[in-house]
């Protein structure tokens, strides 16, 4: 099967988040994706990677986030891995988006967006790494 890979390594510094936009843009160009699809992918990636940057490593320590994109004919797969503390983002309860303003909690939307945008999202802990894989048909 026709397949191509791209790789991005970020450090656990929130200021590096904008690099994801360029990473997605290159993939979008290669696959001729429209701007709506590119924005959705950028958003899902940002939410997943932000989680790692903010919570995986102890504050003040340097840690790495690996982002691998596997580009297939009709789908994209993103594999996000880190060597931080074990954490399954999918164990976070789903945000209830039907609640009124008084009852809406301020947080919890990040992983909800990842689940909403992507077709599949899976977590595993292997060899001391958190690995989040997510796919999207294109």
């Amino acid at each position, binding site marked *: 099967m026709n397949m191509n890979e791209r790789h991005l390594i970020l450090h656990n510094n929130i200021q590096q988040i904008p690099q994801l936009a360029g990473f997605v843009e290159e993939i979008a160009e290669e696959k001729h994706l429209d701007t709506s699809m590119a924005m959705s992918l950028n958003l899902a990636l940002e939410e997943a990677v932000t989680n790692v940057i903010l919570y995986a490593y102890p504050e003040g320590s340097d840690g790495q986030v690996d982002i691998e994109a596997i580009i297939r004919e009709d789908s994209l797969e993103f594999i996000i891995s880190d060597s931080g503390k074990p954490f399954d983002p999918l164990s976070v309860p789903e945000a209830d988006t039907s609640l009124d*303003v008084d009852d809406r909690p301020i947080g919890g939307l990040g992983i909800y*967006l990842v689940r909403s945008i992507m077709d599949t999202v899976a977590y595993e802990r292997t060899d001391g790494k958190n690995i989040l894989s997510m796919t999207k048909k294109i």
Partner: protein
Amino acid sequence: MEVNINKTDAVTTVRLIGRLDTPAAQEVSKALEPVMEDAAGTTVLDCTEMNYISSSGLRIFLTLRKAAASRGGKVIVRNISNDIRQVFMMTGFLNLFEIE
């Protein structure tokens, strides 16, 4: 990201220009502190030139909406793009805000 705040007697208008991603949200959150404290009137979030928002940006919108609700004020979200409208729809934000 650029934030312009313009206050008249009745209305505070906040123009958000660029990408409201996680690092930008940290700055915007600080810039909007006075607006949050003054949320008893009408606050307009002008999104004409905002082309991206992530959950940290949504959190600012919601925090402002809550501040307004508790002080009897209101928040109007103006001119969101179709892509951002999608994000608002996914997260139920369309029901939380007056959108014009």
